[in-house]
């Protein structure tokens, strides 16, 4: 079952902040965040594992609330390069090889 992302789209000016949310109806082992720029492949940004480990991109941060089965991605002091579509992907455990992705959040950062 696909996780639910919100908002669908956000428009920012350079330097502004934004939060993207991802929620699931099932227990999660990990939450992944990917960014896709127009015409390109999605690229891995960050992973949050059950138990609190956080790894990945150092300009963008994220949180993972295991109890609520939710994750949030924080874009702080946004740059033009942050523009793209952000996807969260979730899986239920180490033996669950596949990720289920949300519908995506399109972020547009303007000068």
């Amino acid at each position: 079952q696909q996780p639910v992302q919100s908002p669908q789209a956000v428009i920012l000016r350079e330097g502004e902040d934004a939060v993207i949310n991802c929620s699931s109806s099932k227990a999660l082992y990990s939450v992944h965040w990917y960014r896709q720029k127009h015409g390109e492949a999605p690229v891995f940004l960050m992973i949050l594992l059950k138990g609190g480990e956080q790894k990945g991109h150092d300009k963008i941060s994220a949180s993972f609330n295991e109890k609520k089965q939710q994750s949030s991605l924080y874009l702080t002091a946004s740059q033009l390069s942050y523009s793209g579509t952000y996807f969260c992907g979730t899986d239920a455990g180490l033996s669950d090889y596949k990720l289920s992705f949300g519908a995506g959040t399109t972020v547009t950062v303007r000068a």
Partner: protein
Amino acid sequence: DVKVTQSSRYLVKRTGEKVFLECVQDMDHENMFWYRQDPGLGLRLIYFSYDVKMKEKGDIPEGYSVSREKKERFSLILESASTNQTSMYLCASTNLPGQGDSLGANVLTFGAGSRLTVL
């Protein structure tokens, strides 16, 4: 860097044609996946494979089949293309958790995608 190569970036096919989408990865990854990407629906898993000659259905396998004869190659087959299969198709691969640079979980490396139009 891991590379996932999808041989066809753009294809135009007619309804009823058999379509092959090819994907090759060069880093000896165990797991390979085919996703379909549509606006407003995100990425939906069609099929995946965790070993040669092994395959498992994803969330939307109807109308598709796959083949994995070699570890590095995973093919998506549309037996009889239909207009509702017009979409962007993304291939991805990953190592087993705990191996290489997997960061302890299933971090995916994607190909650039194959945009299929069925007329």
